[in-house]
């Protein structure tokens, strides 16, 4: 069945089978390997993408079921050579260790900050509770979320002025 998926603002007309997950489509059909695959059973959060502004797990999402939705992957955040504020903050704060969980964490962080650029520590932990970092680098990850939030809240304020 030909399905039109909107990924990072671009339409992709794909002949999809009913059983194909969004994770499989992103990685195997579109070579968007920034979205990682690990547990494949919704436990780890490495496959997190944003759909309509919310963090969603692509390993338990049927791609065919997402026609008409606005899908954003880690590849869609940077604008040319300019990193998204969340990506930049993760680099600046040294929040990346092995890096495997980072795309998922960045997507969850982006979903949080786009809605709430000044989250409390509790709100950060709540928003990131679906993303596991086995390097256990959480303190610097939280630093990065706060740092990105400062940048994004300025962007929000400028937009509102």
């Amino acid at each position, binding site marked *: 069945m030909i399905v039109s998926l909107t990924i990072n603002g671009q339409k992709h007309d794909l002949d999809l089978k009913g*059983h194909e*997950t969004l994770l*499989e489509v992103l990685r195997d059909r579109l070579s968007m390997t920034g979205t990682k695959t690990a547990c494949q059973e*919704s436990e780890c959060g490495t496959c997190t993408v944003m759909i309509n502004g*919310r963090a969603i797990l692509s390993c338990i999402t049927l791609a065919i079921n997402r026609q008409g939705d606005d899908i954003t992957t880690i590849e869609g955040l940077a604008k040319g050579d300019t990193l998204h504020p969340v990506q930049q903050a993760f680099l600046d704060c040294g929040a990346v260790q092995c890096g495997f969980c980072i795309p998922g964490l960045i997507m969850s962080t982006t979903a949080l900050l786009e809605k709430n650029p000044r989250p409390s520590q509790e709100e950060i932990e*709540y928003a990131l509770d679906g993303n596991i970092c086995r390097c256990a680098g959480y303190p610097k990850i939280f630093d990065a979320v706060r740092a990105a939030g400062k940048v994004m809240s300025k962007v929000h304020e400028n937009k509102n002025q």
Partner: protein
Amino acid sequence: MVLMLLNTLTFHAPKTIPEAARLFADLKDVKILAGGTFLLNSLKLLKTKGTKTAAHVLSLAGIQDLKGITVDPKGLTIRSMTTITDIFESPHLKDNFQVLRTVCRNISTTPIRNMATFGGNLTCRYTWTEMPAVLIALDARMHFIGPDGIPQETGAEDFFKNAARTDKIFTHAYIPRDTGASIAYRRVKKMSDVDVPLLSLCVKTNLKGKQWSNTRVSINSTTVFAQRDILLEEFLDRSQSHPKLGEEALKHLTVSIYDTRSSEYKQHMFRVCIKTAIEEISR
């Protein structure tokens, strides 16, 4: 490496409730896809075990009439495809509906809450989901539509008494407003990174001074399906609030409910939860 997480299946995406009800009745070997958080993991697990999986998947995601929350002076309507996040963020959760926010907050993780639906949580037939105990305590009515197009409704209590079986499309639940209700909710999970509750419990009553009345105590998880403890309710409705009420209440449990599928430590946790929930209301 090319993944193939699921067996092949035929995907159906009806746009209306009658169409969904007809397909659900006509298709053999079909599973309903709500949020997908239970279903897709189950299908993957069965595939890895070499077990045959459903030939058809019927997605309800395209049916707008199954989404959203509305409120009227007498109660709250939650449609089945409303996500847990949407319920959590709803401005309508006031009075006795506030407990739903606590329940939603406790469910799993953020991406799961963004995907999982009210209907999926209630009808997936897993015994450990969060919503059933609360819906029974709040005396919710569950509404369904079958292939004949005739709406049907049943109390949440009766639905779970029948092991949450249905051959119809669950459309919405209606929860009556009860501005005078006192509610306590308890949920225990094994460890912080395991999101499945070992037990959930909801106590609701209407206090007239210190006198308990119209009490409902519903429990889930270590029980077979969510159900009320009628003996305990009858005792509480004969009682007045006092500091030892929680302790006394433990002598009036319907023991058979807690015996089923419950190991000793779970039974102990139930007792602790019942006692503290009653004490919370008594205070």
